[in-house]
């Protein structure tokens, strides 16, 4: 009675068609089309004509100093932001899991940045980082640290972006980790309590192992998210990717090629390279997580 039949298949297609049409036009088709465009040396997006089929765009991008810089910046950003924010979020989630009064209020406060518009809150950060009037330099000044040109000194532009990136990603991770910790079977903790296990031991022997699949999963999506950092740069720097491009990320580079330099084929090639990088890391991390994670 409930076997798949052509009639039910037809009915299912009716239910699926609104979503499938949109997905076909705006996800499936552009996926192939953009890869196709990336192989043309010259491609007219208005006439859909191209010439010079080959790997020229890829060679050009890989030899472009700005791309190498973007790659370097994005790598540093990712390598710093992901572990730091995961550790801080984990620590915060453990604290929020304490059985004490007021934790609900703290949760509400900590989760707030999750919904933020990064362009808007970027303005606040811009002002906090302001070398003359910014509160960060004033606080650092109290400790005898000289004025730092956070947003104008090439040495500090990437650190400023990293600070902004850590802040903006924390709320999501705290929410997920807290939910994960609260999902761990209470009996483990009760047993630890009876045995008078120390807090640190409880954390390393119960919380960490039980949470490891989630930590790896969040690690993967944060890693990939960090590789795609873009709006943070706009929020902090506006019309340029920091002094001397020092805060330029791969995605910024892609968009800059696309609408700044008006080079859709090269932008397409750069975005395909980004996709391949993401793909490699996804597989590496998935493999690593299979080996080490305790399920």
């Amino acid at each position: 009675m409930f076997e798949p039949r052509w009639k039910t298949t037809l009915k299912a297609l009716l239910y699926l068609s609104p979503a499938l049409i949109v997905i076909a036009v705006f996800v499936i088709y552009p996926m192939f089309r953009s890869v196709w465009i990336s192989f043309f040396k010259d491609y007219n997006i208005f006439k859909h004509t191209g010439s010079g089929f080959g790997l020229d765009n890829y060679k050009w991008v890989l030899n472009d100093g700005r791309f190498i810089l973007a790659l370097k910046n994005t790598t540093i950003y990712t390598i710093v932001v992901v572990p730091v924010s995961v550790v801080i979020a984990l620590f915060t989630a453990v604290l929020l899991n304490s059985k004490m009064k007021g934790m609900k209020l703290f949760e509400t406060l900590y989760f707030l940045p999750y919904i933020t518009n990064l362009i808007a809150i970027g303005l606040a950060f811009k002002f906090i980082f302001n070398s003359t009037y910014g509160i960060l330099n004033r606080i650092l000044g109290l400790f005898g640290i000289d004025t730092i040109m956070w947003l104008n000194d090439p040495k500090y532009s990437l650190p400023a972006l990293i600070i902004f990136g850590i802040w903006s990603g924390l709320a999501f991770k705290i929410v997920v980790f807290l939910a994960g910790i609260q999902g761990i079977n209470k009996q483990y903790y009760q047993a630890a309590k009876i045995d008078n296990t120390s807090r640190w031991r409880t954390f390393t022997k119960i919380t960490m192992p039980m949470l490891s699949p989630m930590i790896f999963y969040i690690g993967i999506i944060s890693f990939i998210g960090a590789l795609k950092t873009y709006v943070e740069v706009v929020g902090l720097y506006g019309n340029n990717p920091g002094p001397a491009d020092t805060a330029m990320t791969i995605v910024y580079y892609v968009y800059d090629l696309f609408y700044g330099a008006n080079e859709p084929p090269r932008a397409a090639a750069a975005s395909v390279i980004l996709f391949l990088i993401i793909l490699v890391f996804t597989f590496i991390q998935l493999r690593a997580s299979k080996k080490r994670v305790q399920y």
Partner: protein
Amino acid sequence: MKNVYKIITYILLAAGAVIMLFPFFWMITGSLKTYNQITATPIVWWPVPAQWNNYTTALEYAPFDIYFINTVIVSVGTTVSVLITSIFAAFAFSRLKFRGRDTIFSILLSTLMIPSQILIITNYVTVAVRMQLMDTLLALIIPFTASIFYIYLLREFFNQIPEQLYLAAKVDGTSDWRYLWKIMVPNAKNALITIGLFNFIASWNAYIWPLLLTNSESKRVLSIGLKYFSGEAGTDYELLMAAGTIVIAPLLVIYLFFRRYIVEGVARSGIKG
């Protein structure tokens, strides 16, 4: 010893909360200061008297009221569309048995890996050139009227509704259409609210697509208007903070009223993965 732990925990959490919330506090209070107060030494922590006219001044510089209405139209438009397309698609993937169901679903899921930058290049051509929708609000809605991720999320929720209910309804001769609207949708109400909120917030904060697809001031959304404004206002920090607050305030209100749905949704999607 126990009390020491308690006190340390409170101190750490309070310090962390201050850091997390400070940018909001600084932006909102900054929006109510005079230029002299916002740049004063020593620091002026609280705006007295509150300079509400910063908001009217910002509005004179740039039509944030129009940006606001545009953003509401686009956000509501995409959210309603996404909910409708997701309800239909998730129902088909969750309850209807048809040829190629699992294959289609896994192909769709695998496309989630693709960075949106690849898609945007071609989508720009599709919407601006082929559909001739350059500089319209429709251009900001159409590509986002369906979402694989939300179909996936909703399907998870639909799958939790006991299959027996569906079989029983079938035996009773209830049509799929009726069953979807009378049983599935009411049962997944919370999930639908969560998905709606997620989509609304994402649409509210969208940046690159509206930047590419709109030129004229009258078609700008808040993120774009704010970006241009920050270029023009220069060092009028109090006006910048006022403009930023206009963009963020609706999100804060949504968070206050729907916190539970947002937090549960994030926790759930994070665990499920």
